[in-house]
């Protein structure tokens, strides 16, 4: 098939023009579900006219694990463990959405130290999630080296996770009423070292990619999404900020005192894959800034609400206090029951708006838990971005949409 572009600039001053006939045979190609560059198990049915994309139909559900159904069979505090597992690249942020929703329904608020630790964990997770995105997108588009640098630094975030919660991936660290454990002195030291070296590391990624001609060629002008379309298609996160809309839930609907930190929303006006890359790089810098402030002014005090109806009493009290024993027994046999009602809480994850909608019927188990998954919504915009592009650009477009299929399928 001849080239689709009627005009092509080979070098400055050398332009070739080709005529081509539109309306040849349409070839339907099946991508996936096990293609490594689909970030999980995404299947795409693509109609091709030569190499040009004419239709994209994402087929999802291969990672459906019935998380919302499971939540209905678990008690409120047991559900935290399940929330880790839908967007498996940002477990603490998923915990946070669920914990905030349950707290809002019950009318409790976590103490300031817990809020600051939540901010620290969600920003660390954002950095780790962007690093996985950057590394894997780099490999997909032919930049092999960047993956090693990204994984090197993500490893440090996992070490931090392990130090504070005991788990490297599915931390279950943030729970209704506070966090599972206070930060250890070693965690604070490791975090301080991480924050100190992160700006130089981000500069390293930028040296590898930002002015790399191949990277620019593969991403600039590819997958354009205008600001109006981004809003119309419900895109959130770096997808909408890469189209020039400064929408960030941490600024626009603040939670965990995000409004008290000094940072900027990362926005790029261009709307293409390169703009989304720049947004994520800038977000990593801003997250480092938030981490520095959170660490410097980490307040003292407890990390859990002092409410025996929500969280169990300390172990020591069980030996001496009958009341503490009763509370302990009640919490671990029946659990707590938020008042009937529904609440929706949205938090900004690395991928966009990850929200949690919960409905209580007044019993000790949820009536309904719904996760508003950013990947699920952003994936619907892929067809709009891909139409008219070449098949090879599809990889850049899926990559910069940064969908996690566990999140989309739940």
């Amino acid at each position: 098939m001849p080239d689709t572009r009627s005009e092509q600039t080979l070098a400055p001053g050398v332009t070739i023009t080709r005529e081509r006939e539109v309306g040849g045979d349409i070839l339907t190609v099946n991508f996936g579900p096990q293609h490594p560059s689909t970030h999980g198990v995404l299947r795409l049915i693509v109609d091709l006219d030569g190499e040009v994309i004419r239709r994209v139909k994402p087929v999802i559900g291969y990672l459906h694990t019935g998380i919302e159904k499971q939540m209905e069979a678990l008690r409120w505090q047991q559900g935290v463990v399940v929330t880790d597992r839908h967007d498996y690249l940002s477990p603490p942020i998923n915990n946070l959405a669920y914990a905030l929703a349950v707290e809002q329904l019950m009318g409790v608020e976590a103490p300031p130290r817990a809020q600051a630790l939540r901010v620290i964990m969600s920003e660390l997770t954002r950095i780790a999630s962007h690093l996985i995105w950057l590394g894997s997108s780099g490999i997909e588009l032919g930049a092999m080296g960047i993956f090693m640098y990204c994984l090197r630094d993500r490893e440090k975030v996992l070490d931090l996770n392990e130090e504070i919660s005991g788990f490297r991936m599915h931390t279950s660290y943030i729970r209704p009423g506070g966090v599972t454990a206070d930060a250890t002195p070693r965690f604070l030291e490791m975090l301080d070292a991480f924050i100190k070296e992160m700006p130089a590391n981000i500069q390293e990624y930028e040296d590898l990619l930002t002015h790399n001609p191949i990277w620019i060629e593969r991403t600039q002008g590819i997958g354009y999404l205008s600001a109006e379309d981004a809003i119309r298609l419900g895109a959130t996160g770096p997808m909408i900020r890469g189209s020039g809309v400064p929408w960030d839930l941490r600024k626009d609907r603040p939670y965990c005192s995000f409004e008290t930190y000094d940072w900027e929303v990362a926005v790029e006006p261009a709307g293409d894959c390169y703009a989304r890359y720049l947004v994520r790089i800038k977000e990593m810098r801003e997250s480092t800034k938030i981490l520095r402030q959170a660490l410097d002014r980490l307040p003292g005090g407890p990390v859990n609400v002092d409410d025996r109806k929500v969280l169990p009493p300390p172990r020591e009290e069980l030996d001496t206090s009958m009341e503490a024993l009763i509370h302990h027994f009640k919490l671990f046999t029946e659990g707590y029951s938020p008042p009937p009602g529904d609440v929706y809480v949205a938090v900004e994850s690395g991928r966009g708006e990850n929200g949690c909608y919960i409905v209580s019927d007044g019993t000790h188990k949820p009536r309904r838990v719904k996760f508003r998954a950013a990947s699920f919504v952003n994936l619907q915009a892929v067809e709009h971005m891909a139409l008219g592009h070449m098949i090879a650009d599809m990889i850049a477009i899926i990559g910069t949409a940064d969908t996690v299929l566990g999140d989309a399928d739940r």
Partner: protein
Amino acid sequence: MTALKLTQGILAHGVIAGAEWVSVPRERLRETLTELKSQGYESYVFMTCVDHLATPTVEKPPERFELVYELRNMKTHRELRVRVFVPEDDPRVHSAHDIYTPANWDERETWDMFGIHFAGHPDLTRILMPDDWVGHPLRRDYPVGGEPVDFSEDHEVWQTAPPEA
């Protein structure tokens, strides 16, 4: 109050946990969403369904299924929840995919999980479950499945299907 700006057809409205909501009859769903969109609620957050089968709450919901549309005004940062109740014996409602584009997949998911039929949807097929799946898993009378655990709480309720399901 945003709810009062709607010209007609509101069954109820209120505020819960700091969030505004309105309830409209299902015949007026499309008009309501169109009107709200023109009033600035241009951002659609999500839509889902709640199954109120045998709910123990004191105030009984009028019907078994409740559809919830969460809308957001990106200028004022306000959110509004639109509720529509759908009866069990006729679980159908008009599709809103042409008003809010992202509703397309949410409606497919709601059809898949709850069996609510969206009239006028261009491709109302299963999205998360396999195409040949029988039943709608998020209905409350659909069993969780798995190994029965003796003496666990509620195990009769959750591990086995009721006879009529």
